């Protein structure tokens, strides 16, 4: 914007300056020429009476004192002889009225003078240098003035542009900070009225987002309290039952507890992520695979991890992605016999985001049950549910497919939103 404003001012100033300076320069040239010719004419006027009335010798004497400064004056006498340097008129017909003849080297003024014995012609030569005396200097002064004015205009334009763009730039920085999750970012309203209004609106929006998030935090905390308090009472009651019933009911209490944990964790996702969830899928998945690798060794499972060298940014909080990968790997360990091979892969998706796969060569899962995200006794569904929610919250999805042999879970994770 700053550049555009400066360019615009440069263009308009140049046009205005040219519109004034070109006519001025032309005027200066014609004024100088007119002045030189007027001076020459005035000198000729002095000679006219002498040429008209005096004798030849007297005229010749009078001519002597008039040439100078490059100018020269000469007279073609009535008999065609030149009294002084022969003029450019030569033997040509004498003009009837005074004439101005322009030549390459200068201008000649021809003045016919009638005498009793015929027509004499006065010829005054004004050289080009005299016609243009002082013009170049004036033109230089004009050009200098023009350049100075242009520079001044550019300086003022730059100042103005900066005063316009600084508030807009500040506003953009604030918006970027808000976008990346820093809800404390506020714009300082400044600059033109419109920009000030946008600044105020952005601040109000940021405040509102903060309020919404804190309301959500409150409601998540409230949800946790409301769900876990009765569960605590239930659990304490179950504990006081006879052993056989206690064991049976405790399984149900634990299942309920896990479900509630999941609900609360989901309710808290937006609070947890704030406005800018982002992590490197390669780093997180590689770290989780490394974490589970020791158990794979202990259980005799070949574990292969494929990932590119560079990072793949995805729109998921690192903790959420880690929990999702843990859930998927935990499922494989829990539901396939020791010795079953596991393959973990991360690769970029066309158009951004990542594809995370966890595959095994085990007996396979009950696809229908897990698609519904239902939690069976073995918690298979719940683990997949965590992963599915994480993928969907990032703008992606979870795909489940049977391979022969085994199962493959693929997480499509959305790319980081760039403003």
């Amino acid at each position, binding site marked *: 914007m700053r550049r555009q404003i400066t360019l615009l001012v440069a263009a308009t100033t140049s046009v205005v300056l040219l519109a004034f300076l070109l006519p001025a320069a032309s005027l200066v040239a014609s004024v100088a020429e007119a002045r030189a010719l007027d001076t020459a004419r005035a000198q000729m006027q002095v000679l006219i009476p002498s040429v008209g009335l005096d004798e030849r010798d007297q005229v010749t004497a009078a001519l002597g004192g008039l040439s100078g400064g490059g100018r020269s004056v000469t007279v073609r006498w009535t008999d065609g002889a030149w009294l002084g340097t022969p003029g450019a008129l030569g033997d040509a017909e004498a003009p009837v009225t005074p004439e101005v003849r322009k030549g390459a080297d200068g201008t000649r003024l021809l003045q016919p003078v009638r005498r009793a014995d015929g027509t004499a012609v006065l010829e005054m030569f004004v050289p080009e240098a005299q016609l243009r005396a002082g013009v170049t200097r004036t033109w230089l002064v004009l050009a200098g003035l023009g350049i100075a004015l242009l520079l001044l205009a550019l300086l003022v334009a730059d100042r103005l542009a900066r005063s316009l763009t600084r508030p807009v730039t500040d506003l953009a920085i604030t918006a970027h900070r808000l976008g990346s999750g820093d809800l404390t970012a506020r714009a300082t309203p400044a600059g033109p009225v419109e920009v000030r209004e946008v600044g105020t609106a952005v601040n109000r929006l940021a405040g509102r987002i903060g309020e919404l998030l804190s309301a959500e935090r409150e409601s998540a*905390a409230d949800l*946790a*309290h409301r*769900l*876990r*308090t*009765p*569960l*605590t*009472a*239930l*659990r*304490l*009651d179950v*504990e*006081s039952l006879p052993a056989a019933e206690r064991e049976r009911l405790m*399984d149900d*209490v*634990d*299942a309920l*507890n*896990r479900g509630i*944990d999941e609900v*609360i964790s989901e309710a*808290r996702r937006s609070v947890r992520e704030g406005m800018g969830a982002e992590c490197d899928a390669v780093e997180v998945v590689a770290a989780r695979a490394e*974490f*589970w690798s*020791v*158990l794979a*060794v*202990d*259980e005799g499972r070949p574990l292969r991890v494929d990932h590119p060298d560079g990072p793949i940014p995805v729109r998921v909080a690192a903790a959420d992605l880690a929990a999702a990968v*843990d859930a998927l*790997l*935990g499922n494989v*360990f*829990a*539901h396939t016999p020791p010795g079953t091979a596991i393959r973990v892969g991360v690769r970029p998706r066309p158009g951004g985001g990542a594809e995370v796969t966890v595959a095994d060569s085990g007996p396979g899962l009950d696809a229908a049950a897990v698609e519904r995200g239902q939690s069976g*006794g*073995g*918690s*298979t569904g*719940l683990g997949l549910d965590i992963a599915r929610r994480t993928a969907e919250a990032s703008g992606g999805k979870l795909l489940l497919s049977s391979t022969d042999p085994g199962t493959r879970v693929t997480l499509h994770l959305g790319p980081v939103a760039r403003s």
Partner: protein
Amino acid sequence: MARLLVVEDDERIRTALIRALRDRGHAVSSAGTALAGLREAVEGRPELVVLDLGLPDLDGSELLRMLRAVSAVPVIVATARDDDQSVVQALDAGADDYVLKPFAAGQLEARIRAVLRRAAGGADAAAALVTVGPLTVDPRSRRVTHDGQPVELSPKEFDLLAYLAARAGTVVSKRELLSEVWQLPYGGSDKTVDVHLSWLRRKLGESAAEPRLLHTVRGVGVRLAEPGQ
């Protein structure tokens, strides 16, 4: 064994807690609101307070601050909010420990005992140090040595080892470990405990195939014992 005060607004939890703690030999008084709890804490002079953070009349952490102004009685906070911020806030406000809802009575009682032990002073510092064969676990400094060499453990690995070391020789179920060390409900197929046990084994220089200290008892749980036992 100890005089306890339970400040909890939910009547069912209060009743169940009083019963469970009395069954374990404690003298228990109770209060249903923050102000009643404060009065009881000052007048009844309990040895320890179990405080619910979600009280109807006053936020539990506010009560904790007021209580701290007048008394140094140990406090265990019971909270349904498991986000780090709430837990840190409670500990900063002066809580000695916390339990997450839903908790088991046994879990609460273990924490009560630990806090009372700590409150009694460093007299049992030596008792807290556990030695199992070549392994020494010091819960106070959270340091572990194996054959005299320090072992680097993650916080959860340490908690797991310390829990097993405190019960050396007995088989501890995975359900108990998940509930007590992670404060998580058991799902029957959770492999969290297994993977941490694998890490512990690796760091202690042994494997599942050739265990020396950490023995898996298939279908029951895990046992930390001296080699050869």
